[in-house]
Every structure is written in structure tokens, then in C-alpha cells.
């Protein structure tokens, strides 16, 4: 094996690929060869580094220099300066927004990474996900070997129960208990399933794990298969994740080639193989019973529980289903022990959680922190706060099933139970930050619009109830809200919560209930005063020209409905009866003379 003096790690996650990292890799390889360094420097395409905001990201080892927002034109300079002459290219190094002086940014000393603890993401951005040898070099398949050669299935289940690992898909059900139920079912065939149908908007940790460390999921599923007595596994992945699908398939093929999947693994007599099934764009398929119907080739409609999957699941056989991030933790727990895992996080909430931080935040990206980390630390220390000097308003967790958390709860320690207690939920880990410009009624409407679109239509409360809620919310945001609408929303929400068939319907009213709880005055302003306090809802806005107007006529010319009148060099005027509130005039005005209220 060749030894290289330097490694150039280029992020090949979806975010960085979208901003051109594939071209960077090609250019690096070309320039490195041109400078005769191809025996000394190796370029590796890794999984996601997490700091998507700074993408495309390039890290050069052994120094660990962190270069951000690299363009193809920058590559030549990094090769000729850093790799050839050993001089860091300062102007391309990542700079923290608050940093005043030049710093030598590395993964260890950037604020974004310092409070983090990367367990599930341990190999993302570290290894080449398309090379099984790199995974093996980082203790890969060691846990599977240990389990198959030294442990009995019940030992594995006990270790999982002791570790306190809870389902990272959002439900938070203890993984060990789930395995115990599936193991207790007697059948000629059982299945183990990985839920990679990551549908929550704004959540992309499962995709990043599949893209950056696919073998960890394969290894964990084999361990789970051994524990419950399943010899076949299925991974159900969203079709919207082409890179993840490709790398996972490659990883499965490599594992088969190495005898880590197939017959008689590690000479233990245990057989296990697994297959990928693609979703086809249905959010409800993230619900476990719907997901299994979809693997069977049917419409992805949920079925009532009981019977639980552990008793009758895929193809009517006992099945166990966990999410990607849950699986990614399992090899670590086996290798390092349940006690070690339990020592991280808070009692009853062991380990870490990955969050996808997005929206109005400086450092967008993937973040992994121990359970119990204060929400404020995630948003301000790691996330770097709110851009453009705006005020924090709320953070939305749990996607369409979750809720909005206001500033007064910023000091809450994040775990499953604390988030539920304030009307939100962990969910899969999307964390969308909103600032003063976001209207909370509109956000509730946005989520209901999503749910109505994605409701499978099988049960009445979800099919009709969410539609009625959406209609009310649409009226309110259009200025047609009526006295009594809030009460109607609450009554509908509580009905749907207690009567819908599956998790999608039961949690669909949460965005409305939580915004009503914390931002009720915004609803009231829309309904009673026909006013949107965040100046977001178009139909409730009034544009006005102030005396800063110089009479340049730019606004009058851009107005599509000729609602603006006025002579050259004189103050203009908007006819509010004609105005369609498109906002074009405000964008065009160079003097800040147009205001909306």
C-alpha cells in the first residue's frame, strides 16, 4: 500500500456536490498529477462534513486545514501553494463570522465543531464511503465479528436495552425493547428493515449517514438480524437521494464480496443478506406499517396497530424496523459497551442526536450533540446565531409533526422528553430557525398544506380534518379570519390527534397547536385587526410611499397594475384599491422610501 504525505478530503455529500465538489475533485487530481505529486498526495471524496453553509468544503491533512466555499479556480492555488510549497492559502481558509484575526481553522478549533460529539457521524467526512477497506480500518465490522463469534442473540439484546438507545427516527422507543419483541416472535422467516424514507422537510442526517458511512448501517442491520433471528434485510430509501442509493448499493456489493453479507458470516453459521427498495415520493411511507406495505409493492397506506410489526410485519412475518441514525450508533455501542454509551447524554436519554440546522441561521449544516445540550448552545454557539442582525423568533423541531419553540424556552436541555413537554418533539431532527420576518400563522399553514398533500386518505380525521384546518388557516392569512376560528382550530386539532389512524395524522395538528400556544397574539392580530405583525402575509400588507421619495418614477414604471401615480421629482402615491401587493415597487426603490405595514 502506498503511503501518502498529504490527503485532500473533498466533501461529496449532496449539499457540496450541488455546489460543484465533483469538479473540484477532478481538478485536484489533474493539478496534483501535473505537479508530479500524485505519488505523495491523495484526493479522497468523503461524506458530509456537516458545515454545509461553507460548502464546498476541502480539508487538507496532516495539518487539517479547513478550506471553505472553494471554487474550481481556487484549486490550482491550493495545489501550488499548500501542497507543493507547504504554505497555507490564508484567504481561502474558513473564517468564523466573529473572528477578527487570522486563524488556522481546523476541525478541532472551529466554534461550529467544538461543542459537538460526532458518534453517529463518526466516519462522515473522514473516510471514503465507496471503499470498504477504509471502513474496516476504522473498526468497521469489528462489532459484527464480536457478536457473531462471542455473543448469543440475547446478549446483544441485553446490551442494547442496557445502553438505553432510543429510536432516532423521532418516536424515541427503546431499540433494545423493540428487538426483544421481534426476537420473541416465532416464525420461519423474519425481516429486519431500515427506514431511510427521510421525508421531514429540512432533515437530512439519514441521507448524510448513507452517503458518508453506508457500511455502519449494513453492519448494524446484520447485528440486528442476528439478535432477532432475521436472515433478510430491506433498506427503504427515498428515491430523491440518488447519491445515497448508489453508495449504499456499492457498499452492499462490497460487503457481499468480502463475505460480510451472505452465507455463514465469520464462519458462525449465520446467514444474512439485504436489499434496497426505493420509495416513490410519499411522505406517509416513513410510517412503519405504510413503509412495509410499500416494500410489498402496494399503496403505502398505514394499517392499525396492533398487530405490531414485531408480531406481523413485512409479508406478514415478524419484522423489526429502525431508522438510519439508530443503526449508525449500534456498532459503536457493541464496541465500546452499553455503560460507555449511557455515560453520554442524560438519564433516560443516552447518547447523542444529530440535528439538521437550517433556515435563518448563520451556520447551516449537520450538528451532532450529546442529549441534554441546551437549545441555546446549538443555535448560538454552533449555529452562530441569526444572520443580518435580525431577532430570533422561534425554532421549529420535529418537522410537520413537531412544533415551534419560542425564545422563552431557548434554555431547555434538548432530549425526547423535554421537547415533548413544551409541545414540540424530537422528530427526526430537523431544526429550522425563524427570525422576526417569519409569520407563525403562515408557518402553521405551510405545514398543514404539507400534511394535506401527503395524507394518504385512508382515515377520515386526517383526510378531511386536516383539510378543514388548512382552509381556516388560509382564510386567516388572507385577512378573512373570523371570530371563533381559533376555537374551531383547537377543537379540530384535538379531535384529529385522538382519532387519526397513524402517526402522520395524530401529529399533524402539532404545528398549529404549538404556534397557538406561543404565538396566539399573532393569530389574533390576523383575525381581529387584519394585520400580519411579521409583515409577511401579502394580502394583509399595505404599501405606502413616505416623504423620502425623490420622484424618480422607478416604482411607477415597475408597478404591473399602474397603481402608482406622481410627477417627476414629486412625491408619488400608491392607490391601495388598485395595489396587488406584489412588492415590486419596494424592491425597485433606491431611496428606501416605500414601507409596508
Amino acid at each position, binding site marked *: 500500500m502506498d503511503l501518502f504525505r498529504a490527503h485532500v478530503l473533498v466533501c461529496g455529500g449532496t449539499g457540496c456536490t450541488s455546489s460543484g465538489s465533483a469538479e473540484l475533485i477532478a481538478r485536484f487530481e489533474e493539478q496534483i498529477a501535473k505537479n508530479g505529486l500524485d505519488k505523495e498526495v491523495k484526493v479522497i471524496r468523503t461524506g458530509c462534513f456537516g458545515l454545509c453553509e461553507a460548502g464546498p468544503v476541502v480539508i487538507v491533512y496532516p495539518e487539517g486545514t479547513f478550506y471553505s466555499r472553494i471554487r474550481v479556480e481556487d484549486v490550482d492555488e491550493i495545489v501550488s501553494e499548500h501542497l507543493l510549497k507547504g504554505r497555507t492559502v490564508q484567504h481561502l481558509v474558513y473564517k468564523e463570522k466573529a473572528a477578527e484575526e487570522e486563524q488556522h481553522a481546523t476541525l478541532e478549533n472551529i466554534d461550529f465543531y467544538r461543542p459537538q460529539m460526532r458518534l453517529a457521524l463518526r466516519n462522515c467526512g473522514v473516510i471514503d464511503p465507496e471503499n470498504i477497506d477504509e471502513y474496516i480500518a476504522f473498526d468497521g465490522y469489528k462489532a459484527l465479528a464480536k457478536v457473531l463469534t462471542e455473543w448469543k442473540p440475547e446478549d446483544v439484546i441485553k446490551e442494547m436495552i442496557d445502553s438505553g438507545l432510543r429510536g432516532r427516527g423521532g418516536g424515541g422507543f427503546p431499540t433494545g425493547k423493540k428487538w426483544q419483541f421481534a426476537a420473541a416472535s416465532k416464525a420461519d422467516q423474519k425481516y429486519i428493515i431500515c427506514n431511510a424514507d427521510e421525508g421531514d422537510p*429540512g432533515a437530512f442526517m439519514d441521507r448524510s449517514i448513507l452517503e458518508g458511512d453506508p457500511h455502519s448501517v449494513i453492519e448494524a442491520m446484520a447485528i440486528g438480524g442476528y439478535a432477532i433471528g432475521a436472515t433478510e434485510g430491506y433498506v427503504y430509501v427515498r428515491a430523491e437521494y440518488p447519491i445515497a442509493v448508489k453508495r449504499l448499493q456499492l457498499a452492499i456489493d462490497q460487503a457481499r464480496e468480502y463475505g460480510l453479507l451472505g452465507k455463514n458470516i465469520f464462519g458462525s453459521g449465520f446467514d444474512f443478506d439485504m436489499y434496497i427498495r426505493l420509495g*416513490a415520493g410519499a411522505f406517509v411511507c416513513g410510517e412503519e406499517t405504510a413503509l412495509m406495505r410499500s416494500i410489498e*409493492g*402496494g*399503496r403505502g397506506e398505514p394499517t392499525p396497530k396492533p398487530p405490531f410489526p414485531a408480531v406481523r410485519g413485512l409479508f406478514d412475518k415478524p419484522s423489526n424496523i429502525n431508522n438510519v441514525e439508530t443503526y449508525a450508533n449500534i456498532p459503536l455501542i457493541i464496541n465500546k459497551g452499553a455503560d460507555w454509551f449511557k455515560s453520554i447524554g442524560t438519564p433516560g436519554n443516552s447518547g447523542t442526536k444529530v440535528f439538521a440546522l*437550517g433556515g435563518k441561521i448563520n451556520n447551516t449544516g449537520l450538528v451532532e450533540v450529546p442529549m441534554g445540550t441546551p437549545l441555546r448552545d446549538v443555535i448560538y454557539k454552533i449555529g452562530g446565531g441569526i444572520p443580518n442582525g435580525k431577532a430570533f423568533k422561534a425554532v421549529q423541531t420535529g418537522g410537520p409533526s413537531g412544533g415551534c419553540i419560542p425564545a422563552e424556552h431557548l434554555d431547555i436541555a434538548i432530549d425526547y422528553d423535554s421537547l415533548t413537554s413544551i409541545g414540540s418533539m424530537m422528530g427526526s431532527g430537523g431544526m429550522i430557525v425563524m427570525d422576526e420576518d417569519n409569520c407563525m400563522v403562515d408557518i402553521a399553514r*405551510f405545514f398543514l398544506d404539507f400534511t394535506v398533500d401527503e395524507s394518504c386518505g385512508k382515515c377520515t380525521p386526517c383526510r378531511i380534518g386536516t383539510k378543514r384546518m388548512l382552509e381556516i388557516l388560509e382564510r386567516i392569512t388572507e385577512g378573512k379570519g373570523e371570530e371563533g376560528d381559533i376555537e374551531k382550530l383547537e377543537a379540530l386539532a384535538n379531535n384529529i390527534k385522538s382519532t387519526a389512524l397513524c402517526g402522520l395524522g395524530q401529529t399533524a395538528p402539532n404545528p398549529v397547536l404549538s404556534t397557538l400556544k406561543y404565538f396566539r397574539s399573532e393569530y389574533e392580530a390576523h383575525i381581529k385587526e387584519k394585520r400580519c405583525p411579521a409583515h409577511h402575509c401579502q394580502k394583509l400588507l399595505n404599501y405606502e410611499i413616505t416623504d423620502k421619495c425623490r420622484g424618480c418614477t422607478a416604482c411607477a414604471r415597475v408597478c404591473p397594475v399602474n397603481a402608482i401615480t406622481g410627477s417627476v421629482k414629486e412625491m408619488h402615491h400608491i392607490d391601495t384599491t388598485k395595489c396587488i401587493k406584489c412588492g415590486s415597487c419596494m424592491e425597485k426603490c433606491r431611496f428606501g422610501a416605500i414601507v409596508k405595514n
Partner: protein
Amino acid sequence: MSNHNEKYEKLAEVIKAHKEQKGALMPVLQEAQNIFGCVSEDVQKIIAEGLGVTLSEVYGVATFYSQFSLQPKGQYVAGVCLGTACYVKNSQKVLDKLCSELGIQPGQTTADGLFTVQATRCLGACGLAPVMMINDDVYGRLTEAEVPAIIAKYKAS
């Protein structure tokens, strides 16, 4: 015409390859859509016969999932992400501008068959929000003002 027949031959192969597999309908529909660009009624009939299931079952599955299309899509499929991270950064305005530029609504295709507009689910490129994709090209950190120039580029090519 030969191209046409080739597609049907390919479909027959796909059906043969999956026939014995459990839960074959979804993978077959997915491959059929890759071959034809959509799953029209005649393709659904062939799949139903080939897999030995009823046409209503095939139709039920094809219409349940948003990824399957019963009509052909435009040469360029422009999808604006309406995931939460993009939405809070005004992707709705980008979508509205795209629709008004092309004179169609989300889900529709222009009369010349050039563009289909879609409001897509989260693409997971939240760091680039708001995001639009046209076929495989990604446009990130967009404002609605940039939309006309992007459209013009595809019209010219």
C-alpha cells in the same frame, strides 16, 4: 419506430427479471418510468398482465406515489424546493416567479413541451436554500430576480 419497439422489449425484460420477486410492482413501475418517461395506461396494462395483477392495482399504486407520472414531462423539469428551510427563506416567491414567467401552474407542462414546473419536497440541500433544480442542475441561494435569466438560458439551448 425501432426505438419505440426497443422500449417495449426493455419493459418485457424488466417484467421478466422481477416477476418472481416479492413486491415486484414498485420496482417495475420505477424502471418503466425510466424507460418511457411516464407510466401511461398502455404501459400499466402490460405490467398488469406481465405480473399477473389487476390493472386497478397497478393504477392504484401508480397514482398513489407522486413520483409516478401518467403524462410525459417537459424536456426540462424545474423543481423549486418547498421544504421548510427553503420556505422560510422565501422559496415560494421563487416558485411564483417561475410560474408567472412560464405561464403555468406547479405540476403543469408548457404547451411547447419544454418546461414542467414542480414544487418539490425537501432536496436536502438546505445549506443552499432557497434551491431550484432544473433536471440535474442545482441553483442555490436564489432570489426571484434571478429566475428569468436562468429560464432564458434553457430556452436558448
